[in-house]
C-alpha cells in the first residue's frame, strides 16, 4: 500500500485507523488480530499527537507505512516530535490494582505492547519510528 501522510492532529486518528484496517485486510489478518493492531497503532498515534506535538508546542506530520512480507504485516509510524521511546514507559505498576485505586492514564503503551506480536522503536535522521509487527496466518500447503 501507498504510505499515508497526515497532519499530527487528533482529527487524523480516524484516517490512520482506516489505513491500518485496509492494510490488515490486504495482509489477510483475522478480524480480531486486525482490531488489536489498529488499537496498538491508535494508542501510539494518539500519544504522538498529544504529547509529541500538542503539549510540546510543536507541529508536524505523521507518516504511516505498511509492508507485507511472507510472514508478517509491519506498520510504521514516523513523526518529527522529540525523541521518545514508548518502551521506556515499562509496564504500568497499577494494572493489577482495583480500578478505583489506580491513576487515570498510562494504559496506552501497555495496550500497544500487549496487542501486537512485536513492538519496536528507533530514532533515525530526526524521526521517531514506531514499528508494529503482527504475524500473518500461515498458508496451508
Amino acid at each position: 500500500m501507498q504510505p499515508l501522510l497526515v497532519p499530527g492532529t487528533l482529527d487524523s486518528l480516524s484516517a490512520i485507523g482506516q489505513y491500518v484496517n485496509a492494510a490488515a485486510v490486504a495482509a489477510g489478518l483475522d478480524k480480531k488480530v486486525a482490531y488489536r493492531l489498529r488499537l496498538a497503532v491508535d494508542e501510539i498515534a494518539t500519544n504522538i499527537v498529544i504529547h509529541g506535538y500538542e503539549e510540546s508546542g510543536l507541529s508536524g506530520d505523521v507518516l504511516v507505512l505498511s509492508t507485507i512480507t511472507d510472514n508478517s504485516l509491519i506498520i510504521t509510524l514516523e513523526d518529527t516530535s522529540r525523541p521518545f521511546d514508548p518502551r521506556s514507559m515499562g509496564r504500568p505498576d497499577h494494572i493489577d490494582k482495583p480500578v478505583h485505586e489506580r491513576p487515570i492514564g498510562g494504559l496506552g503503551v501497555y495496550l500497544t505492547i500487549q496487542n501486537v506480536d512485536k513492538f519496536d522503536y528507533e530514532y533515525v535522521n530526526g524521526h521517531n519510528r514506531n514499528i508494529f509487527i503482527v504475524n500473518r496466518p500461515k498458508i496451508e500447503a
Partner: protein
Amino acid sequence: MIEINIETLQAGAGTTSINAISLTGEIDATNAAEIQRRVMPLSAPGCKLLLDMTKVAYMSSAGLRMLLSLYRQTSAKQGRIVLVGLSDELQDTMSMTGFLGYFTVLDSLESGIQSLVS
C-alpha cells in the same frame, strides 16, 4: 465520530428511574472527553446508569479512561452503572487492563435494566 443518545426509562413498574445512554460509533481520543462531558452530569446521588455499547465498534484507552472517571464518580455518589452490549474486542481490551472485573457487564439491554431494578 460518536453519537450519544440519552433517555430516561421507568422500570420495575415505575419504581426505578434509569438513565440509558446509548453510544454509536468509535470511541477514541477525539471524542472521549465529549462523551464524559455529556454523561458525567447524569452521575448523581443514587443514580442508575445503563451504558449501551452495542453499537460501539471500537474503543481505545481514551474510552477506558472515560469509563474509569464515570465509574469513580458514580461509586462515590452511591450510584450504579451497568454496561451492556460490549463486543468481544471491547471485552478483551477491558480484560487485559483489569477493568472487566470491576464493572457489571451484561449481554442485553433487558438484563441490564433488570440488574439495575433489583
